[in-house]
């Protein structure tokens, strides 16, 4: 495990992005805004997991990122189908 300076900068920028999404989640006037914010956070999280896997230098950790890439959108689709009264 080797943490470079670039990795720390990347993690800081990603943290700032997640904080912005969190503020939108707290503020957003309607439920749709909040759903969009959480969907964005889940995409950012997938990229973050791959980056952390490269920092830890563990190949098998990529499976978790694959689970994120495949599954997190189902929650957003469920919320969307509720909002349009489709479920």
């Amino acid at each position, binding site marked *: 495990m080797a943490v470079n300076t670039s990795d720390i900068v990347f993690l800081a920028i990603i*943290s700032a992005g997640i904080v912005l999404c*969190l503020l939108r989640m707290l503020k957003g006037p309607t*439920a749709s805004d909040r759903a969009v914010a959480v969907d964005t*956070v889940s995409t950012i999280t997938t990229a973050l997991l791959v980056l952390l896997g490269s920092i830890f230098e563990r190949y098998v950790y990529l*499976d978790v990122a694959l689970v994120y890439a495949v599954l*997190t959108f*189902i929650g957003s689709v*469920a*919320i969307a189908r*509720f909002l349009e009264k489709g479920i």
Partner: protein
Amino acid sequence: MIFVFFLILLMLVAAIAASVFRDLISAVIATTLVSLAASILFYLLAAPDVAMAEAAIGAALTTAIFIIAIRRTKRYEE
């Protein structure tokens, strides 16, 4: 280490938001955010099995089951 505390703070804020929101759908969305942060924490603690279970169950199945429950009751808390 700072990153771990940042994640704990994120979980805390999202959980408080989930308990404060009057709109139950917004509360479910905040709960999803809690489970995302918890999964990254498990990942950082070198427990990929638990992180995978948290991701698979917390992200999709729990949200859907909460929503199916809300569909039969009221959406706004009084």
